[in-house]
């Protein structure tokens, strides 16, 4: 049973006063490594990131006014500076800290943005498949050698599979499905094996007993979403492009059939995913006592977070996370509330880009949103009470 539930029990049994419960919670929440501590920092990070993206959007709205050498110079300096900071931390023996891992992922993303910047300024564009392959090659030594956390290897594996699928399906232009199937097989095999090997070297048996199912579920979910999402896009784009611009279906007959097959597969798989998700990520399982249930939920939440980028899922996504957030409030589970706010905020940020049609406006809105997120982190107890009062849910 979680400490939060224990505290409620003890308070109801008059073993602790409300003040003592609050004091204990405050103390525990502020211990480094505590879940609440990590989530609060995660939310703080989101707020700061939103503000940073807002600033970037404002800079981007005046992009042509900035000299090319300055743009490149700043980006390269930032990349090298982060490399220097990581080296400094590594020498201090801080490579196992989550901060190091976070900056490792940030550094990897920055390399991709540097590639985009170079392509834009120097006009050295190449195929997306080739670009991603180069990115993969450049960051793989860093991620594999220095990564310590499960999420890093999960992301790396997804990238590996995606790059493989893209390159294979590109080479076999009329056999996209084949490429994706290969990728699926690889993901099935690679992910659990790799995660097992990397994370649990000292305790294989314990890992197998506790985590294999959760990791397998992550693997299955990831497998379904990324290859099929890519397949769907590629098929749709290719077919539509040929019809609209080449005005012929002669040579795209196979692609059309392939696309239809993919669409059906995608629909079936989506239904399966949804059924699976609703079964596992329900408010009941969110607060289940089983450790495995929590892990299954975590795996699925990660998938849903990733799905937040799909426009057609917007309504369900928002409703779902509002429900999850409210359930978290009712149970005073700050972790779930923080997760819901993070998901909602991330999705709203994307909406800004879709709706405002102006980088300047988007930037300003994002900065305001970031400040809002930071304010919500700071004033959690107050607005929790206010919301529960409005919904008459105060226990």
């Amino acid at each position: 049973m979680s400490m939060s539930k224990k505290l409620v029990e003890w308070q109801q049994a008059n073993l602790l006063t409300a003040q003592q419960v609050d004091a204990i919670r405050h103390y525990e929440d502020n211990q480094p490594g505590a879940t609440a501590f990590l989530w609060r920092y995660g939310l703080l990070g989101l707020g700061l990131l939103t503000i940073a993206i807002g600033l970037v959007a404002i800079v981007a709205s005046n992009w042509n006014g900035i000299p090319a050498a300055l743009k490149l110079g700043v980006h390269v300096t930032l990349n090298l500076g982060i490399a220097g900071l990581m080296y400094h931390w590594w020498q201090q023996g801080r490579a196992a800290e989550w901060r190091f891992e976070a900056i490792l992922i940030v550094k990897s993303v920055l390399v991709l943005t540097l590639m985009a910047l170079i392509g834009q300024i120097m006009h050295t564009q190449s195929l997306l498949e080739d670009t991603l392959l180069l990115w993969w090659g450049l960051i793989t030594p860093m991620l594999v050698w220095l990564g310590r956390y499960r999420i890093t290897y999960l992301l790396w594996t997804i990238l590996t599979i995606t790059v493989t699928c893209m390159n294979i399906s590109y080479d076999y232009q009329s056999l996209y499905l084949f490429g994706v199937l290969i990728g699926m097989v690889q993901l099935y095999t690679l992910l659990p094996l790799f995660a097992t090997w990397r994370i649990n070297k000292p305790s294989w048996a314990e890992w197998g007993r506790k985590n294999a199912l959760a990791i397998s579920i992550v693997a299955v979910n990831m497998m379904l979403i990324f290859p099929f999402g890519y397949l769907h896009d590629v098929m749709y784009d290719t077919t539509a492009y040929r019809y609209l611009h080449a005005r012929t279906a002669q040579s795209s007959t196979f692609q059309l059939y392939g696309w239809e097959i993919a669409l059906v597969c995608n629909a079936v798989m989506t239904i399966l995913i949804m059924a699976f998700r609703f079964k596992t990520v329900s408010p009941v399982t969110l607060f289940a006592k089983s450790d495995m249930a929590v892990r299954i939920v975590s795996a699925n939440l990660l998938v849903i977070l990733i799905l937040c980028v799909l426009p057609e899922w917007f309504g369900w996504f928002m409703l779902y996370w509002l429900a999850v957030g409210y359930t978290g409030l009712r149970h005073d589970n700050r972790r779930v509330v923080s997760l819901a706010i993070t998901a909602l905020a991330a999705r709203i940020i994307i909406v800004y880009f879709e709706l405002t049609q102006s980088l300047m406006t988007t930037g300003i809105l994002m900065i305001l949103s970031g400040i809002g997120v930071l304010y919500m982190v700071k004033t959690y107890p107050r607005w929790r009470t206010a919301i529960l009062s409005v919904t008459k849910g105060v226990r």
Partner: protein
Amino acid sequence: MTSKRNSILILLILLLPTCGLLAAAGYSYQAIQKQPSVVLPITGYDPRDLIRGHYLLFQINWPWRAKDPVTCTTGPADCRLCLNTFDATQPNVIQVALVAAQDTAQSGQCQAVIGSITHYSAPDTRTSGTVTAPTVLLKNTPGRFYVDEHDGPWLDAYFRKHPDDFSVAVKIHNGTIHLQELLIDGRPYRITMLQKPALAD
């Protein structure tokens, strides 16, 4: 010793992404810049795509040679696009023709050769005697050019009035097209914007 070796290894691993990327980009840039610049007309664009950035989206309006001696009979992979000044009376006009991939003699006479054709359709003569131009799709057809969000509306308005004035300057390296500049009346679009700001009104 091991620690020192480890330190050097970690440093190399951390520097690889930035330095490796800069080296690859520099090498690629040098190779592309050595190629001659070719101007190709473009058609139809949508200047706004916020999610992916403010890119002008367009299609190349291939200036086909009037009589095309070669067709892709065995599949698009066996053909290349040859850019050349085919008409002796118009030495400055670049035109495009198909050449067979294995015909190195003919390819050698081209100013530039573009490979990786993924789709080709022959001119259509079935509809009321009108001959449509052949259509080709390339693996890496350049179709977008970054424009500032402030420039988008001007370009959009200008294009509606003067659709035939637009072209792109490209360089062709290893059979792939690399976009260099968006042109209006043969000049970089920003120059036209500065000199004739009211043209789009």
